[in-house]
């Protein structure tokens, strides 16, 4: 099953870009997802809500995508997957106190996806909402 992305812009307290991921996020498509978010950032989007309610599978490469997406949405240099991740230390220091950055937030994650986030500790990087409506109300 392939990955489909759908983007919608919502006027909450701040403008929120909602990207719904439907299908399966794996090693065959995680790089395209990072590219898509890079495009959003270039277009001026600054707060991204990933709606994971239709995501039925996430591989460890999906975690790499989530990590990279956080960097991209913080204006960091596009992560070079072959090495050269030094750039992100600045960001690390900036958000260190709070740890959970807020530029990228999640909602609607199903059990298999939540499990992967928790098993790798990547859940600590994100504010997670049960669904899209409560996320938009909270942002």
């Amino acid at each position, binding site marked *: *099953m*392939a990955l489909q992305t759908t983007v919608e812009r919502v006027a909450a307290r701040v403008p929120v870009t909602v990207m719904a991921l439907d299908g*399966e996020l*794996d*090693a*065959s498509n995680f790089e395209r997802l990072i590219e898509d978010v890079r495009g959003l950032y270039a277009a001026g989007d600054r707060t991204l809500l990933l709606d994971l309610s239709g995501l039925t*599978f996430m*591989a*460890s*490469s999906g*975690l*790499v995508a989530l*990590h*990279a997406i*956080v960097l991209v949405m913080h204006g960091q240099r596009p*992560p070079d*997957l072959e090495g050269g*991740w030094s750039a*992100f*230390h600045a*960001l*690390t220091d900036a*958000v*260190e106190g709070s*740890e959970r*950055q807020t530029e990228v937030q999640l909602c609607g994650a199903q*059990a*298999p996806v939540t*499990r*992967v986030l928790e*098993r*790798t*500790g*990547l859940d*600590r*990087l994100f504010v997670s909402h049960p669904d899209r409506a409560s996320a938009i109300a909270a942002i």
Partner: protein
Amino acid sequence: MSAISVDADLDRLADIRALVRGVALSSDAPPACLDDLVQAVDEAATNIVVHGYARRGGAIDIEARLVDEQIVIVLSDTAPSFDPTSVPEPDLSVPPLRRRPGGMGIHLIRLATDSMVHRARPGGGNILTLTRSLDPRPKEER
């Protein structure tokens, strides 16, 4: 025991996951067991495609059986020999943003399975045996 051979190609990962769902279905595996097997096999197959065959292609042979309430899935390849059980656990105490992305695949296999056993394939290659009990709970809740 018969095997199904799949091209070592990232575009076949979805097929491999569907295959594993079929294996779990016919053993009437509970949801968390199915999810764990899909995750573990996907990560192992991805590593074979990306690291083992270095994206140059090859074959992954997949076998499956149910033994004593355990689903056993065996992945064989003819890539250079590599024992994933030799890879150390990632340090999860490091805050996510301080980490170098990646390096979570084998960790996820460990958490999703009850055992992961590697042996060299006679004549060259790898045989990776992944076992997951039919227990309805994920490992961390047992």
